[in-house]
């Protein structure tokens, strides 16, 4: 069923992609890639600093003060989600059948759920009036998971080229990792 879903998605994008023509012009793809890398740096710099602070680096600085960097991390993420979507909408088969892309999405999901968990579970201890300079243990675990998840996102993104899907020969598994066409 998932296989059929992947095939349908690739076909749907290939038929209706609003950006493929633009992205196939001479410099569009390289420019989008450069922006994707700039967004990566912004995201890692801002979110990484905050995670490191939770883990105990620059302990004298209130956590809430370092949290002011987070909107810049979100900006980096927004740049990368947009440029990433441009790639996906131009060459859907290169991503939807790519095992490295599947792992990248999984790591992104973990990073997102982990961030959600942080705001649900640790908000008061970390930002409230009685906030202490040392983050609670739970927040430290969340920070460590965040760092690992984002590093995995980067590694999987960089590995996409090396796991390009080839033609299918008797493939099985939860998700298609080859091109059925």
């Amino acid at each position, binding site marked *: 069923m998932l296989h059929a879903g992947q095939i349908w998605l690739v076909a749907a994008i290939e038929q209706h992609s609003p950006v493929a023509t633009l992205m196939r012009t001479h410099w569009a793809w*390289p420019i989008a890639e450069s922006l994707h890398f700039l967004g990566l740096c912004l995201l890692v710099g801002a979110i990484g600093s905050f995670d490191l602070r939770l883990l105990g680096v620059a302990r004298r600085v209130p956590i809430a003060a370092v949290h002011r960097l987070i909107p810049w991390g979100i900006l980096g993420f927004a740049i990368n989600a947009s440029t990433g979507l441009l790639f996906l909408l131009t060459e859907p088969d290169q991503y939807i059948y790519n095992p490295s892309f599947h792992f990248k999405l999984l790591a992104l999901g973990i990073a997102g759920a982990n961030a959600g968990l942080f705001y649900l579970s640790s908000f008061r201890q970390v930002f409230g009036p009685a906030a202490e300079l040392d983050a609670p243990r739970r927040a430290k675990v969340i920070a460590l998971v965040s760092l690992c998840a984002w590093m995995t996102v980067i590694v999987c993104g960089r590995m996409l080229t090396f796991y390009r899907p080839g033609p299918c020969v008797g493939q099985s598994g939860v998700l298609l990792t080859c091109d059925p066409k």
Partner: protein
Amino acid sequence: MSIDPFLVWLESTALSEWVVGSPSMLAFPGILALHAIGMGLAAGLAAVLDLRILGVARGVPLVEFRRFQPVLWGGFWLNAVSGVLLLVGYPTKALTNPVFYLKLLLIAVAMVLFVRIDRLIRSGDATAPATARSLRRLAITSLVCWSGAITAGRLLAYTYHRLRA
């Protein structure tokens, strides 16, 4: 004098052949992945310091940003080493492309700016009007250099003339 004999020799070394030819995901793909992580750490933390100088997260004293510096330097050295390995793998591709020299130049300038920013921060009163002005100018230049270095790096894949000697 041509550097071709040198390139031919370098491409024939065991290290170069391993980087390019090994089927292991730890060879070329792994080195590229480390290079991307080092970029995120070095350029990302430098950019965050620049943003702080330009007024973001004012509640964080500039001096305290020095605590993150070992990570920035870690990213820098990770990329120096992984970068040299990538260069040994494809020396002709890089050394015959002017964009590669532009990238190196921009990184060198960015790191010099970082050291100068750090020296100003350590020197004491970063809030004195003259110092604050210098810091802002350095921070803006730093952001331009890092953006340029990253863009140049990405464009290396599209601007080379010769792949191998």
